[in-house]
């Protein structure tokens, strides 16, 4: 199935199974209701823009999808299978790579060790599984330099020595290289220069064309409207809009985000 078929058929019921299906998911932190009854489906080969203002619940939603926390109620299905155990390891094993906004890098480890964290390559020495340092060094060096990190970056150096933009590039490089079925990008263009931004956006489109599901979280509706197939807008923890890109202009969508808070919010659940 080509990517265009994908887009065409996904609107019709049962034509194609969603890769990730969120059903009536709610999540509360104590008294604070971060997500309320959110249902949304994501399909393979599409680039979905997940948009909303600060505190809309975007990051919470992707934290559930990437297994960092379980929902308070509701269900998550991956490839038709209900997820019962929420753990990042499980999500990674299912083929999901997430570029988190604030986490994902351990400052005290070297670039190479960060690159392979959680999936360290080993070699057997007298039957003991020791880190394959040569492989860690060579593979991570190749990837980070392919992604345009300066040549003076030594993958044996602590990652804390990189700049904010370089760290962001590193996270993207890592997610893209280990790509499997889903890539989630949480504000991927933060800390990046204009040119780097364009490159990340091109990359998101390429990944989608390779058949991956790309979830792109951003504030910037104009940026995402240019590249996404579908736009999902969250507001105060609820899904307020879920439309194909062509159905609404970026200006109209921006109006929804801007005025969303004025729309009546149904009674928030007491704790």
């Amino acid at each position: 199935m080509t990517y265009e078929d994908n887009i065409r058929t996904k609107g019709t019921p049962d034509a194609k199974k969603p890769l990730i299906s969120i059903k009536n998911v709610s999540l509360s932190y104590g008294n604070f209701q971060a997500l309320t009854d959110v249902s949304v489906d994501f399909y393979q080969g599409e680039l979905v823009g997940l948009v909303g203002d600060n505190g809309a619940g975007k990051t919470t939603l992707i934290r559930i999808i990437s297994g960092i926390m379980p929902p308070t109620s509701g269900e998550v299905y991956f490839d038709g299978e209900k997820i019962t155990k929420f753990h990042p390891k499980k999500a990674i094993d299912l083929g999901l790579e997430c570029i988190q906004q604030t986490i994902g890098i351990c400052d005290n480890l070297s670039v190479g060790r960060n690159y392979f964290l959680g999936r360290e390559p080993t070699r057997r020495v007298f039957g003991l599984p020791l880190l394959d340092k040569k492989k860690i060094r060579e593979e991570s060096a190749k990837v980070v330099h392919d992604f345009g990190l300066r040549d003076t970056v030594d993958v044996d150096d602590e990652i804390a020595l990189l700049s904010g933009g370089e760290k962001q590039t590193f996270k993207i490089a890592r997610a893209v290289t280990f790509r499997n079925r889903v890539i989630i990008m949480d504000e991927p263009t933060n800390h990046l220069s204009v040119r780097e931004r364009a490159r990340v956006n091109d990359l998101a489109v390429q990944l989608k064309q390779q058949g991956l599901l790309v979830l792109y979280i951003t504030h910037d509706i104009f940026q995402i409207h240019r590249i996404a197939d579908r736009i999902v807008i969250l507001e105060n923890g609820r899904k307020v809009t879920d439309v194909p890109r062509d159905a609404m202009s970026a200006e109209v969508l921006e109006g929804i985000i801007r005025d969303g808070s004025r729309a009546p919010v149904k009674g928030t659940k007491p704790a």
Partner: protein
Amino acid sequence: MRRFVARILRKHPEGITIGLVVLISCGFAIITRGSWLSVGNLQALSQLTAVLAIIAFGEAIVIAIGEIDISVGSVSGIGALTFLGLAPMIGSGGAVIVTLACGMLIGAMNGVLVAIVGVPSLLVTLGSLFLFQGVGYVITSGFSFAATNTVRSQLIYKVVGGGEVGGINTAVIWALVILAVLQLIIFETPIGNRVLAIGGDTPSAFSRGVNVIRIKFGVFVVSGVLAAFAGVLDAAFIGYADGSFGATMELSAIASAVLGGCHLAGGRVSLIGTLFGAFILRGIQSFLIILGVQPQWYILVVGLLVVLGSLADRTLTRIALKK
């Protein structure tokens, strides 16, 4: 030059500790007119250092995950008492196994409360510090446990600190073996990489699929086992133990780790440095004894070193990571 210093600090945090070792060795040798450097004193010093270092290695890996274990002093006391209490009945070999199992259980208790329940490790291990100190006082009820002559003649007893090889107490060999094994695990295996990752940034490590609960639990178990084993080694050397055995060892262990270049906030650890840190502390202790200073001064010095060490730790980390 600054870059060079920063690089040394990053890659070899124990460098400063080794410098200190040389410095105080020379200083103490001169002040004591050589008696500090005498063969007899160095032999005693090596045994004392080995026991402290083994406890401090456990402490260092707990610090590596960004936690702290202050129960190690009383756990080593429980280790000593269990070993000496059981050895006459079931033999030294059996007593060592039961003692290690005790250390494992205490470590597991700390580990469950910290890793699964989520209680801050300072509180949990402060509680178990007093709990097992209390147990020690209760089971000895004012008396002390001593190794019988039969026990002392057993080979295992000699192997676990009660004997020496070529003038060197067996505890020293144990300390070096444990150092080598831990060094390999922490710096050369995936588990070690994850231990350091948790210490550096727990949420990030978790997001990369690291099983934080299992590793934290495991680290507390290792710390408990090592503390109990150190208690065995010291008890076998001394031959008897009372309820206060191991008291204040936790402070010395933390001081050793800090002096050795372990970063108290976690993520940076030097086991070799910790060994030298333990040597410095024991060196100061024996120096004070040779000078005839009241032993109470030692605790004051250790406390001071922990405070100064933490201060230096912050400053040095800042220099090391300056871009």
